[in-house]
């Protein structure tokens, strides 16, 4: 039996929920899957989730789980786990999951494996593949101790459209009986810092720079290449953190997700937080001095060498 904890806001499902269901179905290997979804709008989200080939969908409601808080989610989901009694608890590795799942694991006194990208069978039992050392290595791991074991899956590791559908499961509602005093966080309304002045998701071509560019004085090299390619300039997180380019040009889990025709990654190592934002690009070019950089795992074309020599040569070639 697998319990999937889905995520929604105001009735709109986070698309990673379907990916978690796909992962949960694979892990269940035919045994029943139950999906739980909490918060204001959960009953509406539950109707959408009822399209899945699962045994049941539980909308977790109540005054203390209207809005997300870590304390509220831990208490409510501990009660769901107690009631469903699953072998496995599967979650998408979203920022919200990262905020409450480790505390849920401590409350249940069970093991939690985070950021998994696949499920394997090793010695007849499930094992999980996950990146380690910034994606330079991968590991097959197994949670220890007693069931249930908690597992989170990286966004994009499973395809939501491949979640099996069509069992018309039983939809139930569960009241989260959480004391108001037990919730210590007081959340305010989510907001966007500034309206996205640059919508990189519409760009056909993107030249993105990473730490390899070394300093803001070298940005004109990337800007010249972008001009020659009729591309937008973007960056990995450290570049925006350093203030070399504005935050609105950041690609990755904390920035924008893009799928251009052409993505040129300049001096970007390819940490997973960046790759999740750009791996949907049709053609990826990686320019990096390190032949072992994880960015080459997703690149179609690569140049291994000094970007300070290569960028001017590439720009000149395009202008010919």
């Amino acid at each position, binding site marked *: 039996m697998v319990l999937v904890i889905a995520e929604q806001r105001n009735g709109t499902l986070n698309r990673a929920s379907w990916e978690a269901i796909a992962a949960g179905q694979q892990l269940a290997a035919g045994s029943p899957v139950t999906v739980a979804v909490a918060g204001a709008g959960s009953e509406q989200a539950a109707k959408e989730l009822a399209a899945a080939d699962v045994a049941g969908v539980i909308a977790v409601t109540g005054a203390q789980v209207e809005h997300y808080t*870590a304390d509220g989610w831990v208490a409510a989901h501990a009660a769901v786990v107690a009631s469903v009694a699953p072998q496995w608890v599967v979650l998408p590795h979203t*920022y919200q999951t*990262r*905020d*409450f*799942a*480790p*505390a849920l694991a*401590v409350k249940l006194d069970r*093991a*939690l*494996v*985070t*950021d998994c990208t696949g499920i394997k069978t*090793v010695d007849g039992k499930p*094992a999980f593949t996950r*990146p*380690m*050392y*910034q994606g*330079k*290595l*991968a*590991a*097959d791991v*197994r*949670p*220890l101790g007693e069931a249930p074991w908690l597992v989170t899956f990286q966004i994009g590791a499973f395809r939501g459209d491949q979640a099996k559908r069509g069992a018309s499961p039983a939809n139930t509602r569960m009241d989260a009986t959480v004391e108001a005093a037990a919730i210590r*966080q*007081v*959340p*305010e309304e*989510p*907001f*966007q*810092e500034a309206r*996205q002045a640059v919508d990189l998701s519409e760009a056909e071509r993107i030249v993105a720079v990473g730490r390899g560019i070394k300093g803001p004085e070298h940005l004109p090299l990337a800007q010249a290449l972008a001009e020659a390619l009729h591309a937008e300039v973007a960056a990995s*997180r450290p570049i925006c953190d350093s203030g070399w380019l504005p935050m609105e040009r950041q690609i990755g889990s*904390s920035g*924008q*997700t893009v799928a251009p025709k*052409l993505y040129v990654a300049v001096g970007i190592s390819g940490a997973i937080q960046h790759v999740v934002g750009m791996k949907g690009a*049709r*053609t*990826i070019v*990686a320019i990096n001095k390190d032949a072992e950089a994880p960015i*080459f*795992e*997703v*690149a*179609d*074309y*690569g*140049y*291994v*060498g*000094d970007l300070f020599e*290569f960028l001017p040569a590439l720009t000149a*070639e*395009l202008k010919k």
Partner: protein
Amino acid sequence: MVQTLSPMKIAVCIKQVPTREWQPRLADDGRSIREQDASWELNEPDAYALEEALRLREAHGGEVVVCTAGPARAAMVLREALARGADRAIHIEDAALGHADAMAVGAVLAEACGGEAFDLILTGLQSDDQGYAQTGVVLAARLGLPHATIIMDVKIDGGRLRVKRELEGGWFQWVGMPLPAVLTIQSGINQLRYATLKGIMAAKKKEIRKAAPSAPVTPRVEILSLYVPQKSKRTEIVSGGPAEAAAALVKKLREDARVI
């Protein structure tokens, strides 16, 4: 209105990880890295957590205590943190902590922090080695303290905390909570300072208290195998000098990929 500032006792939990430039080499057991080949540094998100603690101390007064759970080699990052301005350090030393999972490390840190009555505990949102992104939250749950994660701003007023949580896709949210509390800090929350020569000299006189876990470190996750990941795509590498490689790449992008 006169605002009274009460001094803060702040802990920062930090970790020593292989440097970003480190080329991974696997140990013969196929489940760990060859540590003797690695060079080490302070986990980057933890450096931002330390900086945030130093800024809070500058604003409110008080003390910054850095804490690590690791083998003997991890003392290096404590000395670095002391040189950057932390007041004292706690080193929970155990060889098994070098490759322990977040659940195990969180339990050990909770034991060390439990007796200190910290007002605030900060740590990076995840480590650049195992990257579980769990330790801070496990620590909070173990100590029974409220927490918030992936924090981009910290405000303290009248014994309450108001922090800016980063959500996905450019969204944020302010969250209030009482002190004491645990926060996991996102990279980029501030501009880092580096150790000065004066700081390095001053650090030599600062205390590093050693402690040992009271019970054997119990793993909750087993690494069955560690390996270089398989490529999901076949990358065509353009070779030659810069001009030659650039010409080859442009030809491929025009004629094969047809994206320019």
